[in-house]
């Protein structure tokens, strides 16, 4: 059988344009009947969904008013969307809780310290980062505690932790979690890789225990059992109890992240360091940990995002964090209006989305930078 064509085929038409806006539309939205149908269905759905959301958040929203009356449709005489006046009236409560108004400069200064530390730690080319680490993990926490709780020596009046609230508490809980969990997590990760069986199994048991139970049970446990374990009539501050629970819980997750970094460092690095005459501690401090921690920066940031979201759970055990003061503000009878819950949750969603999303972007940026470094080295 021979397959030989005897007539000349007409030339095929040139391929359709793939460049330019029309080409982009064609390849990305209308490349076939199924694709076109998908596009049309989604467009119809968005056309149905987006205008009401926009109307709720912007056009129909009430931007000013002294009480819930302004946000009632029968008073306003029009359909009412989000009641931003409510957020405006409650913003101080949402940020500081019941912290005394005259002392609010102290939380503000604390926010400033946090911003400074964050920039120092997150900006990888910042000057004197070693000093920054000392500040963040040692000086900063002590300074913040003295500032917020009050130090009579410096003529700062004491403020009971039961008065703290809102974004301030959310920030305090997450920062304590981070500052305690990172060093503890590094120690646990090292212990888990130790040659000494007792140490290793103790660390494995610790890590797997905290990773195996829900955070809410940990918080309940810290609440009821921590006072039991302490000698005599020693009591624990109500805010400190969940902090201990969160620190232990987060350190177990941090340990697993750090362990991933330690595993990524070739064994030859440690051997070379020992061969150069470094002691084991020096090899760890100068050779292995700096490399391992650099690799896991994205993992650490992702753990922080989880931690930041998880701090909302302290509201269940009675700590006045952001969510709890939001719920309390929502229940204010002076501000009872149909759209108040939706407004409150929209505001909270914007807050958490802004913080978590920017942290996630940062982690992705570091990941790309590390990948570029690897490519450059290869």
């Amino acid at each position, binding site marked *: 059988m021979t397959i030989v064509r005897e007539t000349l085929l007409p030339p095929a038409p040139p391929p359709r344009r793939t460049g330019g806006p029309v080409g982009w539309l064609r*390849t*990305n*939205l209308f*490349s076939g009947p199924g*694709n076109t149908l*998908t*596009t049309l269905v*989604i*467009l119809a759905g968005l056309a149905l969904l987006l205008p009401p959301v926009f109307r709720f958040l912007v056009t129909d929203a009430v931007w000013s008013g002294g009480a819930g009356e302004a946000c009632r449709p029968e008073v306003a005489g029009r359909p009412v969307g989000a009641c931003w006046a409510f957020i405006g009236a409650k913003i101080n409560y949402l940020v500081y809780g019941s912290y005394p108004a005259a002392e609010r400069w102290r939380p503000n200064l604390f926010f400033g310290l946090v911003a400074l530390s964050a920039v120092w730690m997150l900006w990888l080319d910042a000057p004197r980062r070693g000093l920054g680490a000392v500040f963040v993990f040692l000086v900063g926490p002590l300074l913040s505690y003295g500032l917020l709780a009050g130090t009579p020596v410096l003529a700062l009046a004491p403020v009971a932790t039961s008065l703290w609230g809102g974004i301030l508490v959310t920030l305090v809980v997450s920062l304590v979690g981070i500052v305690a969990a990172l060093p503890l997590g590094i120690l646990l990760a090292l212990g888990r890789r130790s*040659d*000494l*069986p*007792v*140490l290793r199994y*103790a660390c494995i048991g610790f890590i*797997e*225990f905290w*990773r*195996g*139970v*829900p*955070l*809410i*049970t940990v918080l*309940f*446990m810290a609440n*009821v*059992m921590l*006072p*039991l*374990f*302490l*000698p005599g009539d020693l009591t624990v501050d109500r805010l400190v109890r969940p902090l201990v629970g969160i620190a232990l819980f987060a350190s177990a997750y941090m340990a697993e992240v750090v362990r991933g970094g330690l595993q990524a460092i070739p064994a030859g690095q440690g051997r070379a360091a*020992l*061969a*150069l*005459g470094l*002691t084991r501690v020096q090899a760890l401090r100068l050779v292995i940990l700096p490399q391992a921690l650099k690799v896991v920066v994205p993992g650490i940031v992702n753990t922080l*995002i989880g931690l930041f*979201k*998880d701090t*909302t*759970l302290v*509201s*269940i055990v009675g700590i006045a964090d952001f*969510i709890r003061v939001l*719920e309390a503000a929502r229940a204010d009878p002076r501000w009872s209006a*149909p759209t108040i*819950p*939706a407004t409150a*949750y929209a505001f*909270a*969603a914007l807050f*958490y*989305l802004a913080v*978590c*999303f920017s942290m*996630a972007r940062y982690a992705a940026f570091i990941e790309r930078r590390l990948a570029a470094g690897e490519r450059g080295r290869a």
Partner: protein
Amino acid sequence: MRAGPPRPGSAPRSARGRALQALALQVLVALALAGLACLAVTNASEKLARQGITAGFGFLAQAAGFDIGQRLIPYAAATSTYLDAFWVGLLNTLLVSGLAIGLATLIGFAVGIARLSPNWLLRTLAATYVEALRNLPLLLQLLVWYVAVRVMLPEARDPAAWGGAYLSQRGLVLPRPEFVGAAWLVPAAFVAGLVGARAWMRRRARRDAAGAEPGPVAAPAPVLALGLPALALVLGLPALAWIGLGLAGHPVGIAWPSPGPFGPEGGLGILPEFAALLLGLSTYTAAFIAEIVRAGLNSVARGQGEAAAALGLSRAKTLRLVTIPQAMRVIVPPLTSQYLNVTKNSSLAVLIGYPDLVHVFMGTVLNQTNQAVEVVAITMAVYLTLSLGLAALMNAYNRRAAPVTR
């Protein structure tokens, strides 16, 4: 271990010295841990004694005396014990976790595949879903479902009705089949249908693989031809059993709910707390599963998809037969840990009042009995057992599915 000249001041240690040092360190660690535990136990027992609480698990046999809104096993406030309450709570946790795992897997795979769609709009929409839900606390999402979404529903006095179902702020009420007498045949037929369908699909797949049905490669994908008989088996067998029972004179009764003055009465009620928890958990977890699925699909070499396309497989068939089976190896380990997270996150039920294990046991029972140590220990032991059990299963799967290295 250490090459090179020893530094002055640190005499070279013998292997025996090092071993001794290691032993001493370990004994020290063990002693410190034991000491801490001992201190905690002494303090706790002293304080408990002062509060007049007797340690031990005897309280589990006492009458509970409180009611639980949703129970899968018989439970009555007056006669049931704390142990019964424990089982009710545990079953509620397992019910909501199991359903949420199924739902989250469905949504997660759909969104994960959509993130790699050639359609820009679908891709972007899926990415927005993932970024939005992943970056919001689950607790906030539960509040939104339970409070903000619920107020949009009609009030219980005037529920929305479809067929025999009623939806209101007090939850969803469905017609409930009454399983008395021989009616167990219907669910049994459903299970038989499932087993039969699976066996049929397997046989079919083997026959295809053996090439018993050689046909044009580019034939239209017979998804329907493959799926329809299976679907008929799964749905048809129970329907047949239902009709057969009716003809034999033992019809399966259905309790239809009816609108009452305070809300729908009778039927199968689904608590709004349950619905909010189920929806919140599954949509939240689905965002994480979508990312896992996307990473898994991306991990399959691009040539695999191209080769499948060159063989004439449609995009759907390529995904189903070539890409997803290979991606599963990467997907399954993180997927199991997400399933575990669902189980652990279901404890947020306590926020909205769904009677799960934590709410019933660590909440009500702990408050009534004050047996803090025992209650906390039991609850944590349950979650630990679930976690470690699932981890063991996952390790077994990993060993089986480990890539064959050549």
